C-alpha cells in the first residue's frame, strides 16, 4: 500500500536505505569480480584490466574436475528433488493438516548445516555397517558398498538440504492454481496424471523451473554436506575453499568465483523478473473474473 500522506523525503529515505543494504550485501561479490579482471591480482598497486585469468580457469584441471563433479551432483539432485517438491506441494494443497505438513517439510532448515551433515555421516556409516553385514550374510558383495561415502550419499544429503527450498518455490506458484481446473479436466475424461500434465503443469511451470535453478545454485553453494558426505574433497566449493586455505586465493580462483557468482545472480535475477512478469499476467487474468460479469 502506498502511503499517500507520507512525505516525499521519507519515501526517498526508504529507497536510499534499501540501496545501502543491497550495496552492503553485494559489495564483496563485486570486489571479487573487480579483482578478477586485474592482471596484477589482489592487492597490487597497479590495476591493469585483463580477461587472462578467465582463460587460465580452463587449464586448472583440479578446478574443472571439481566443477564436473558438482555439476553432476546438481543435475542428479535437481532431477530427484524437484519432482519430490512438486509432489509435496500437491500433497500440501490437498491435506487438511497444513501446519503439520509444512513443519515436517521445512524441519531440515531448522537444523544447522554442520549438525545435519555430521548426523547424515554417522547415519550412513551405521547403515553401511548393516549393509556390509547383510551383504556378507547373503554372499552378495555389491550390497555391501551401497552406503559407502560417495556420490549417492552426497546426493541424499543435498536432497535433504534442497527439498524444503524447492518445495517453497513450487508452492508459491501452485498457490495461484485453482483446483477446480483439475476437476474440470477430470470431468472431461482426463485421468489424474493427464489432468496434471495438460492443465496444472503448464501453469506451475515457472515455479518448477525456478525450483530447478534454485536447487542447482544451492548445490553449487553447498560446502559442509558435500565435504562430509561425498568424500574426496573434490567438489567445487571444497576445492575452492581448500585452495584458499592452503595457497591463498589465486587469480584464477577470483575468476572462477566471479563466473559462478555471475551465473547465480543472473539466474536468480532472471527468475525474479520472469516471476514478476508472470505474476502481473496472472493478476490481469484474475481481475476480470473477480469483477461481476456481463
Amino acid at each position: 500500500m502506498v502511503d499517500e500522506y507520507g512525505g516525499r523525503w521519507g519515501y526517498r529515505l526508504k529507497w536510499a536505505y534499501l540501496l545501502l543494504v543491497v550495496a552492503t550485501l553485494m559489495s564483496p561479490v563485486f570486489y571479487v569480480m573487480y579483482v578478477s579482471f586485474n592482471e596484477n591480482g589482489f592487492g597490487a598497486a597497479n590495476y591493469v584490466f585483463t580477461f587472462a585469468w578467465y582463460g587460465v580457469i580452463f587449464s586448472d584441471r583440479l578446478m574443472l574436475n571439481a566443477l564436473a563433479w558438482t555439476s553432476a551432483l546438481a543435475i542428479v539432485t535437481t532431477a530427484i528433488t524437484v519432482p519430490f517438491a512438486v509432489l509435496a506441494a500437491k500433497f500440501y494443497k490437498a491435506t487438511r493438516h497444513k501446519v503439520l505438513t509444512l513443519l515436517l517439510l521445512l524441519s531440515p532448515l531448522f537444523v544447522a548445516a554442520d549438525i545435519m551433515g555430521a548426523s547424515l555421516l554417522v547415519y550412513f556409516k551405521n547403515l553401511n555397517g548393516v549393509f556390509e553385514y547383510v551383504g556378507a550374510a547373503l554372499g552378495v558383495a555389491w550390497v555391501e558398498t551401497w552406503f559407502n561415502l560417495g556420490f549417492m550419499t552426497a546426493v541424499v544429503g543435498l536432497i535433504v538440504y534442497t527439498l524444503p527450498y524447492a518445495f517453497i518455490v513450487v508452492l508459491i506458484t501452485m498457490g495461484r492454481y485453482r483446483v477446480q481446473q483439475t476437476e474440470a479436466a477430470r470431468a472431461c475424461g482426463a485421468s489424474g496424471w493427464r489432468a496434471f500434465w495438460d492443465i496444472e503443469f503448464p501453469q506451475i511451470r515457472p515455479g518448477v523451473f525456478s525450483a530447478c535453478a534454485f536447487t542447482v545454485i544451492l548445490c553449487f553453494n553447498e560446502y559442509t554436506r558435500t565435504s562430509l558426505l561425498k568424500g574426496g574433497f573434490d567438489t567445487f566449493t571444497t576445492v575452492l575453499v581448500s585452495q584458499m586455505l592452503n595457497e591463498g586465493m589465486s587469480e584464477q580462483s577470483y575468476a572462477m568465483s566471479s563466473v559462478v557468482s555471475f551465473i547465480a545472480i543472473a539466474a536468480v535475477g532472471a527468475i525474479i523478473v520472469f516471476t514478476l512478469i508472470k505474476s502481473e499476467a496472472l493478476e490481469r487474468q484474475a481481475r476480470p473474473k473477480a469483477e461481476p460479469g456481463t
Partner: protein
Amino acid sequence: MTPETMTPDMNAPAPPAVEVRALAKHYGPVKALDGVDLTIEAGEYFVLLGPSGGGKTTLLRTIGGFHRPTAGQVLLHGAEVSHLPPDKRPTAMVFQSYALFPHMSVARNVGYGLKLAGLAKSAIAEKTAAMLEMVGLDGLADRKPHELSGGQQQRVQLARALVLDRDILLLDEPLAALDAQLRKDMCLELKHLQEKVGITFIHVTHNQEEAMTVADRIALIAAGKLVEQGSARDVYETPRRRFTASFVGENNVLDGVVASVTADGAMVDVGGAIVHAAGAGAAAGMKVAVSVRSELVDMSAAPGPEGASLPARYRETVYLGLITFHRAMLANDVELTSRLISTAGVAWRPDPGSDVHLHWPPGAARLHLD
C-alpha cells in the same frame, strides 16, 4: 447364464438417470450427507436447493465422482458407480467459476474432452464450432478465457460439458458469480438449452428464484438430509415440512398447539387465536407449526370476512417497488408479514403502533408436524 437370460428385457422400464441410495458422506464427526435417498429420471431438469453448507454441493459432487461416499450407493442409469472416479462416469460438469483452462483458447477448452476421447482434429473442430454456435459464442473461438466476460465464461463451460455428449450434466451453482440481471437471462437460456438437448440436468443453487425458473423438480437439502422434493409449484404452494416453508418463498411460520382435528387438517391455537391449517397426521394437544404465504395475508382495520383473522399491532412498511411489506406483531410478540402488490395495497395506511387485523382466506394455512 444362458444367452436367453442375457438378452435385455425390452419391456422393462428404463432405469432412472440417477439413483442415490442411503448416501452418506462424513468428514470426521461432521455429516455432510446423512442417508440421502433420491431418484432423478432421465431428461429431467432437477434442482438441488438449500442453504449454504447444507450438503447440496457435496451430493452433486458425490454423484459426479469427486467425493467417495462414506456409505450408500450412487447408480447412474442403473449401474453402480460409487467406486468410479469422475473420468469414468457418464457425467459432465459445469463449475461455479475459475474452472476454464486459462492457458487454452476457448476452442481448445471446448475441444479438450474430445481430444481426450481420441477424436480426429477435424471432428473436434467441427463439433467445437457447432457447440460454440449453440451457446452463442461463435466468433470467440480464439479468445483466451480472461478476455471473456463472466457470462461468456460460463457459456464456454457449458459448451465444454455439452460437447462430450454425456447424458447427465451436473451444474454446481453455475450462475452464482454473475450479476442479477445476467443470472435471470441465463436461467432461461439454461432451461431452453436443456429442453433442446434433452439430457438430464442436475443444478445446485441456493437461489430459489433460479431454482423455480429452471426446475422440473426441486429437492431441498439441509443439514445433510433430503428435506422434501416435488415440483416447483408444490414446493412453493404446499410445503409439507416446516423447513421448506421457512426457506422457500416468504412464509409466516407460527408455532402452536392442535386444539382439535378436522377432516382436512386441524384447528391450531397460535398464541391465543385459533386458526385452521390444512394437512394430515395431527392429534389434539400436539405441538405443530402453521405456515401462511405472506402474499395471501391481507390487512384491515376490522376483522376479515372469512378464514383466519388475527389482531395485531402495526409496526412498519417496507416499500420494494412492485411489492410492499407490511410488518405487524401479534399479541405473543410473533411477527407476521403481509406482502402486497404496491399499487393494489391496503386502501388505508395504518400508523406504526395502531391496531390492525391480519387475515387470510380459508385453506391458505399449511400444517407442519416437524
